[in-house]
């Protein structure tokens, strides 16, 4: 599978490693080249330095059509903007974004953007722990 990961912070770089170890074709984008140092499994990965709110950078990232785009920069609003720009470039691309603000989740889910919210996931996981359910 062809996967594009936007944002190479703690989550992004871990995702790069997970997908590349599975044998998927991975492209990672970050505007700050130094963020790529967190990636361990470097051989099979393509790197792109650029600001992903910039349409030209997104088009470059999506040049080989991707089956999955994960938008995981540290800023919710940036992730939202990027997701919507990708949908304008290619409606059919599957885009999943990370949002910290749980209040934004249902708004953007209703708009057809798939969202992962660490806040909700942590709370859910907490109450599945022994003695807390």
């Amino acid at each position, binding site marked *: 599978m062809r996967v594009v990961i936007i944002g190479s912070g703690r989550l992004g770089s871990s995702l790069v490693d997970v997908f590349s170890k599975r044998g998927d074709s991975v492209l990672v984008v970050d505007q700050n080249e130094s963020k790529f140092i967190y990636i361990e499994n470097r051989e099979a990965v393509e790197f792109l330095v650029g600001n992903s*709110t910039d349409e030209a950078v997104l088009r470059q990232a999506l040049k080989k059509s991707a089956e999955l785009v994960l938008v995981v920069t540290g800023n919710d609003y940036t992730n*939202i903007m990027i997701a*919507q720009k990708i949908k304008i470039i290619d409606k059919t691309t599957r885009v999943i974004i990370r949002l910290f603000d749980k209040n934004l989740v249902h708004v953007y889910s209703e708009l057809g953007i798939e969202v992962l919210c660490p806040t909700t996931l942590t709370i859910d996981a907490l109450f599945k722990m022994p003695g807390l359910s």
Partner: protein
Amino acid sequence: MYIIIVGASKAGINLAKTLLTGGHEVTIIDQDEGKVRLLSETFGDTVMFGNGANASVLKRAGANRADVVAALTGDDATNLVVCQLTKLMFKTPRTISRVSDPANEEIFQSIGVDATINSTRILNYLIEEQVQAGDVIVPLFPLKGGDIELVQVDVAKGSQIIGKKIKELGLPEGIIIVSIYRDGKTIIPKGETSFKQDDEVIAIVKKEHIERVQQLFKGAK
């Protein structure tokens, strides 16, 4: 009217002043606590601390009864979310956004933001054309498709159209005069309507005719 302004930028503060003077109800939201404290000395309860892209903050600000929400922070992505949230959650009738990167205007329009203000584009225009006062065509709103714009232009002193009727100007098809603001009144013009100095004119103009509009309205050297 009730207007919520997100982002206590210079533009935001000046807009608030103008609106308050005009008798409107205003709330300014900013997430810089120091700024909010300072501003509340002048504006009192009109200023509110919080993240204007957060649904519960907007709710406390009364977004559900706001007639207009203006997103004027310096960050395009934040402004996008402010407009989208207010449209979807609070059904705000009119959203206006500042857009810093001209390339972002398309996405703001595609999500249904009613008006975008692009200071970069206005500044570029001013610098490129080295315009004199009265020669400025202010782009208000690019209409869908991009090659037609709603613009505002003032009739400069010495302009060739002063005293002339619209029908005498021989305007091409791509220029429509929409309204003329004169002496506190807005006129919906007809062919017989003539121009006066300092008229504030709103027009729909095809991009290829922008220069022609400028020729007509500009002052004599």
